[in-house]
Each structure stands twice: as C-alpha cells, then as structure tokens.
C-alpha cells in the first residue's frame, strides 16, 4: 500500500497540468494529504515488519541489465515517508496564496514530493538514483520561477551542486553495479566488496550524497538556495530534500561499504562537527532572517552526519530521528520567515523587522516562531531535544571530544536562535510602546493549519520519541555496518 504514496503524488502532478487553475491548490492539498494518509495508515498497521527492508513491489523493468522496479519498506523509510507527507501538506498550505502560474507551481512541488517518496522507498539502486535525480530539476524551476532574492543565482547554484553530487553518485553506483553484479539493495547488502574498492568508492558515493545533506564545506548551496526559494520551496528543501542525501548515504554508501565506512568515518565526524559549529557561528552574524535559518539547517544536518559517523545504534537511530525532527522544525521556521513575515512586511532584514513591533501585530506568528525556536534550540519536550540527545549519547561512545565541541556549538545555536527571535519579534522600541502596532493582514486559516500540523508533529515526537524510535532502532540494528 505504501507504494501508492508515489503513484498518488505523480498522478496528482499530472492531473494538475490539465485542470483549470482554480482547482490547482485544492488538488495539490488533496494529493499531499492522501500521500500522508497512506503513510500514517502504514504506520498504524501492526503486522508490518519494519525491522528489515521488506519488499513491497518487485516487477522486472529492464531484465537485460538486471533492473527491477523494486520498492521496500523499513522503519527508517517509513519515518522519512511520514516527514515527507507532513512537509508536503504544510508546504501546500503555506502556498495557498500562490496565484501566478499556480498549476505549474504545484506541479513542480508535487514532483519534488513524489520523487522523494520514491527515493525513500526504492530498493533498487538504479530506481533510487532515478528518483534522486528526478528531484533536481523541479527544484530549479520552483526557485528560478517563483523565488525571491537573487533567485536565478540561488537556483542555478543549488542545481549545479546537486548535479555535481549526482555525478559522484553515478560513478559510485556504476562501480557497485559492475563489481557487485546486481542493483538490488538487499542482494548487494550480502555482497562482499573488496576493501580496495570500498576505500575509494565509499568516499565518492558518500560525498556525492552528502552534498545534498549540506556537508561542510559543500554546504554553500543551502543558505543561498533557501533564501532564494519561495516559502514552499525552502520548506521542501529543508524538510525533505536535505534528507534525501542523508538517507541515501545511510542506505547505500554506509550499508553497502561497511569497511569503507570504517575507514572514513572519523573524517565524516570531523566534517560534521566543523559544520555544526561553523554554520552556527555564521548564522550568528546574518542580517537576513532566512539566512539565519538556512545556516541553522546546515548546523542541524551536521548532527545527522555526526550521528552516522558514530557507527552505533544510538547515534544512527538518533540521526534518523533528527532527520524527521529537522524536517518538521526547518519547515516551520521557513514558514514563519517566508510566509508569515515576509509576505506581510516585504522584508526579512532583522534590522528592519526589529522596529515593527511584530509580536503585537502578528501574535500567532510570534507564538509559532517561539515554539519553532525552542524546538530548534533543543529545549526538552520538542523533537529536536530527543534526537540530538540520542545522537550525543551515541557520539560519547565513539568520539567523546566531538561531544564537547558540539556542546559548545549548541550554545551558539541557542545564541543565534534567540538573537533572531528577539530581533524579529520582541525588539520593542521603548520610546514607541504606546504607538499602535502596524496594520497587517491577519494570519489566514491555511497558515494556522499548516503551522498547527508542524507544531503538533514536533511536540508529539518530542514528548514521546519512542513512537518513532521503536520503529527506527530495529531497522538500524539490521544494517550491516553495525555487525
């Protein structure tokens, strides 16, 4: 049944193209909700074995070259399918005001979503790569046509970075295919690649994927891309697209090349820690609210990579949980900055925002942003805390030093988040307190619904992380590099 997430989304995208414009956003919403509902329904089924990457569909596709249309599911995939659904629904809700070329907009948006479902569910390497590359071009158009600041530059940079990563991945996949003689991920997971091959193919493959996960120093596409993108685009980028890279790195690079991973994991840990601290420090100096959030995304994704590098159950499970958590929180932050604030004030400059008394003009936005910031800082009770503490426990076993440095980095995260929060909403001009808050269009119902969904998700997982961890952990334990 889970396979229908892909079909429903692509079918919705195609139908969108021929439908009159008035239906576009409704159809997009229905499609996104349907995809999420399928994910939730699978989540609620108790008879599904989520500990192993179990085949859902397997149809021969190009028998001459051993390619199959092969989908499978385990706890990790399911978690990411859920976050994709949540991000998709909220992205559509926060794009409710898109009227110019609306069909096209939602078409590209649904292609990104559908391709992401495909990546998370593929059990055939070629199929996975197909979906992975399929996401690149829609992102370009979403940003270049519908974006804001410096959109063509941001879109091209993001696309070229993605495609550069894609070229590295292509090479790695060909190496796997030719030496392993198969494209089936489950079969390949049994295959013993020579250490010599692993030593060079692993870094190529992992780096290729990690470009999309925003690994330092190849992260620079992320802030510019996020800033240039329309609100829904940033939400999808932070919520889903960065996860594609991390997920594929785990599922393909680490799982197929365990020895290569052992050889290189210290390097990954170093890059991850540098990324966490560096991005947080850079975020502290940004003037544009979206840049702050963009760099915070890079910092949070650094936690995912650090979790991978620990190579133990805690660290990796925490990393998967962090992917979910950041998907939700990142989407929420961008929704506030891009839709709630920018659409009304036409500026994201912190200096300009600080004089606007926004907390009184837009109380709901202020409330949402406080929740999102708290979640982002890792306050207990939100998903960010649950994920990051799990990662750090895992890291303590492998790299104690990294935990110390990351701990310092988390202070920086708190610093830049609080700074952004204060400057944007709570910088009350004391001389001007009596003045009435500026007139602004009130927060609309779709915005409230979208924000509510995201806040609910981060709270639910924060208060009861076992909900996801119970499904993630067995799947992680089944991975080869832990044995």
């Amino acid at each position, binding site marked *: 049944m889970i396979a229908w997430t892909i079909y429903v989304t692509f079918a919705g995208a195609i139908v969108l193209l021929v439908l009159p414009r008035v239906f576009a956003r409704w159809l997009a919403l229905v499609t996104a909700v349907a995809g999420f509902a399928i994910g939730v329904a699978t989540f609620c089924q108790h008879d599904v074995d989520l500990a192993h990457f179990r085949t859902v569909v397997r149809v021969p*596709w*190009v*028998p*001459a*070259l051993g390619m199959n249309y092969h989908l499978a599911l385990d706890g990790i995939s399911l978690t990411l399918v859920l976050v994709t659904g949540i991000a998709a629904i909220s992205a559509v809700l926060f794009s409710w005001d898109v009227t110019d070329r609306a069909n096209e907009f939602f078409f590209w948006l649904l292609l990104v979503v559908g391709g992401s479902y495909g990546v998370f569910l593929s059990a055939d390497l*070629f199929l996975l*790569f*197909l*979906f992975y*590359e*399929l996401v*690149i*071009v829609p992102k*370009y*158009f979403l940003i*270049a*046509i519908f974006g804001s600041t410096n959109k*063509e530059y941001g879109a*091209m940079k993001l*696309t*070229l970075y993605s*495609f*550069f990563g*894609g*070229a*590295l991945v*292509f*090479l790695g996949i*060909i*190496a796997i*295919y*030719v030496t392993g003689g198969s494209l089936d991920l489950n079969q390949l997971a049994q295959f013993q690649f020579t250490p010599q091959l692993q030593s060079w193919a692993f870094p190529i493959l992992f780096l290729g994927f990690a470009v999309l996960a925003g690994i330092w120093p190849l992260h620079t596409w992320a802030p510019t891309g996020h800033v240039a993108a329309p609100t829904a685009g940033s939400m999808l980028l932070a919520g889903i697209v960065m996860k594609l890279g991390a997920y594929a790195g785990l599922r393909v690079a680490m799982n197929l090349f365990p020895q290569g991973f052992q050889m290189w994991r210290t390097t990954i840990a170093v890059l991850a820690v540098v990324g966490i601290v560096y991005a947080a420090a850079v975020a502290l100096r940004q003037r544009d609210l979206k840049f702050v959030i963009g760099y915070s995304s890079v910092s949070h994704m650094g936690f995912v990579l650090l979790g991978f590098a620990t190579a133990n159950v805690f660290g990796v499970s925490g990393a998967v949980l962090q992917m979910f958590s950041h998907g939700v929180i990142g989407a929420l932050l961008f929704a506030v900055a891009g839709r709630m604030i920018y659409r009304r004030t036409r500026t994201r400059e912190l200096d300009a925002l600080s004089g606007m008394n926004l907390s009184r003009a837009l109380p709901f936005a202020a409330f949402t942003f406080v929740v999102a910031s708290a979640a982002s800082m890792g306050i207990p009770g939100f998903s960010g805390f649950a994920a990051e503490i799990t990662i750090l426990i895992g890291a303590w076993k492998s790299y104690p030093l990294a935990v110390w440095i990351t701990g310092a980095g988390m202070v920086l995260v708190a610093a830049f988040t609080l700074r952004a929060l204060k400057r944007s909403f709570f910088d009350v001009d004391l001389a001007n307190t009596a003045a009435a808050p500026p007139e602004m269009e009130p927060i609309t119902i779709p915005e409230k619904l979208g924000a509510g969904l995201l806040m609910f998700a981060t709270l639910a997982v924060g208060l009861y992380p076992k909900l996801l961890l119970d499904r993630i952990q067995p799947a992680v334990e089944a991975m080869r590099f832990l044995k």
Partner: protein
Amino acid sequence: MSYLELLKLAAPEAIVVVTALAVLTVGLTSTRAKALCPIVAAIGTAVAIGAVLMLPSHANLFGGMLVISPLNSLFKIICLVLALVTVPLASSEKSLRNPGEYIAVLLLGAVGLMLLVGSEEFLMIFIGLELLGLSLYVMAAFDKSDVRSAEAGLKYFLFGSTASAFTLFGISFVYGMAGTTALAAIGQKLAAGPVQPLLAVGIVMTLIGFAFKIAAAPFHLWAPDAYQGAPIPSAAFIASGSKVASFVVLGKIVLVGFAPARGSADWHAMLAGWSPVLAVLAALSILLGNFVALAQANVRRLLAYSAVAHGGYTLLGIIAGGRDGFSATLFYTSIYAVTLVGAFAVVGVVRRESGGDDLQNFAGLASRSPLLAASMSIFLLSLAGLPPLAGFFGKFYLFSAAFRAGGNHGLLWLVALALFGSFVSLYYYLIVLKVIFVDQRSSSTPQPGQSNAGAARTSDFNVSTSLDLFSRITVTVLAAAVLFLGLMPQTLAARILASLP
C-alpha cells in the same frame, strides 16, 4: 545469384530510390508539389520500412557488400524512421523553394545511410559514405536566399571531401596489408600482436573520416557552422541519421575489421591500436564540446557543440568494445538522434515565429506555447542525462559498459571525465530552459541587422502556423518517444542486444 534475388534483398534501397525519383517528378510536374511531395515521400519510406521487415534474417552477398542481419535491418529501420520524421520538418520550412528536389535529395541521403548500415565491406562503405555525403552537402546549401546556408554547405563540403580522401587513403593501406576489403576477412588476415607502423597509418587515416562524420574533436570544426547555417531539416538530418549510421559502421569496422589491432586505452596500460586513438578523440570531444558550448548564445551552435560532446560519450561504448559496449553505443546514438531531431524541430518552429534562433528568441516560450516548451525541456534534459528520460538510461548503460571493460577498471578515467562533462553540460541546457521558462519575451522588435534576419518575416506569421502543424505533431511524437524510451528502455535496448551476435 539471379538479379531477381538481388533485387529482393536490396528491395528497401530500391524502393527508396524509386520514391526519390517519384518525388522529383511530382515536384517538377504537379502544381501542388508542396503538399504532395512530403506525402509521397512518407508513403515510400513507410513501404521501405515494411520491405526491411520482410527481408530474410541472414544473407551475405558479394563478400560482405550487402549483408542482411538483424542488426543491419534494425538500423535500416531506425535510419528510415529518422528520414521519415525529417520529412514533416522539410514540409514546414518555407525557405526551401523546391520541396520536391529537397525531399528527393533527402531520400537519396537515406539510401546512403542504408548502404552504409547494410554493408560490411570497405568499398561499399565508402560508396555509402560518399552518397550520403553528397546528399548532405546539397541539403546544407539548399537555402539559396541565405548566405549562411551557402557557407554551411561549403564548409561541410570542404571538410567532408578532405576527410573522405583520408579515409580512402587509409582503406588503401589496409587493403595493402590484408589483401581484401571485406571486414570479416580483414579481421582474420591481420596478425594479432603489436601493430605495424604501416597498419597504424591505415587505421588512423580511416578513423579520421569517421571522426569527421561524428564530429569528434578535433575534426568538429564544420559542425557549428553547418548546424547553424544549414536549413533546419538538413541540420537535423546531419545530426541524426548521418551520425547513427556512422556509429554503426565505425563500430563494425573497428570491432570486426580491426579487431586484432585493438590496443588498450587503460589508464596504466596504454597500448598502440585504435582504442587509444578513439579514447583521445572521445576525451577531447567531451572536454571541448562541453566547455565551448557554455559560451554559446545561439541555440543551434549550442546544440552543435553539445553534439561534439555527445559524440565523445558515444565513443566510450566502442572503446569498451564487446557486445555490451557496442549495444550501449548503438542505444545511445539512436536515442540521441531522436532527441536531436526533436530539438531541431522546436528550433525550427521558434525560428519561424520569432525570426531567429538565438537564446533571446526563446524567451517566454513557456507562455507562448506550453507544449513546445515542455517538449524542448524533455529533449534538453534527456541530453543532459536526467531521469526519467531516455538519455539518463542511455548514459547509465554506456558508462557502466565502459567501466566494466578493460582490466581492473582501466577506463575509469574516461568514465569520470564523461561524468564531469555531463555535469558541466547541465549548466548550458539549464540556461536554455531558464530562458524558456523564466525570462519574458522583450517587446522590442528584432533589429534589422540581427544575425538571422533572413527568416524574420512576421507578415507570414499566419501562413506559417498552419504549416507548423506538422512540425508540432512531430515534436510531440518525438518528445513522447524520448519519455517512453526513458521509462521503458527495454523496448529498444533488448532489441539491439538481441540483434548483436
């Protein structure tokens, strides 16, 4: 061997020749030649395709002069299909004053393609090359009202005839060494082992002619001018049919005829032979084609340089050799040809509507004609190698074949280079798409001194839209084919693989 039997086996070629003559007659006599000629040509081509399907599966006449095999028949069909889709482009091109003559020459070119594909003997191959070449020279220079067309024809002719001379020279050396002109016999006569200097000269000279045909650097210099200046259907045919047939023949010559003189292109174990020569050509083409394409402001020139790069990728399969590599090359060149005809058809429509084929003429195409814009993005993204389009699978097939070949992944350097090249290429394809989807058309009228002023006849606008119907249908069909071959590559790949011995 009776003449009747010969005629039976050469029926497809004969049918196309007869059709060409019929078209010529119709063009001269009928008052409605413009409408009739394409129809006659289309029917004749379709009948010829039927005749190819009726051929026996194996036959060999005159020591390889006419060989009928599943592979040859498959590619005769592909070449005929490419000629068939070029016909509607020719019918909507206004600048071609005598459609009968033009289409007749096109069909004669198609006969050249069929002879090339259907022969495994050097003399026949050379005759095929010349027949094809002469038709293409005429087609390139056909637009008498445009000086660029004349330039394209002359450049193509000068480079082409020089390249032919090299090839003939090379063939004579090879004949001197082997004492025969049949490919299979040459392959047996040539001694395995180190390549003798005389044979090396022969091989290199022979390859030069083909490097010219496939526009591999450094023999690509004609391509940008020919692609830009020639009438659109001619450029499309030069870029598609001629290329497919050349790759088929090149593959047969080196893999069958020069099999003992293969050498090795592996990184640490280069060995004299044809494969290092082709590897150098491929590497140069990939680098030069992609980097020079970055700087182009004219879409046709851009397509020409990208064609140079694609020629480089396609060579990878032949260098890899074997059944796997050759079938990857054949698959890639076929889908490339389909894609490029489509792209040229779009360029043709845009050129008639907006009076030029520079990048700025494509601005706002998405709002003017969503269908053309969508088709163009399918073609360009397929060229860039993005899923779910045919080019993506083609590249995967090609690069994995190259990676597999050679000892200890010796061709890794070429694969990495090709991947780097296709990374670079995405930029210029995206720039075209950006212009189509993001930019808005500027309201200013085209400048009188603009490069393609010859086609800027806005008063003909209404006339052209009805003629463009054929072009638009062709574009849509080709875009659907590219998408279909991307989703179901099995349909073509398995057929090619099965036809190879």
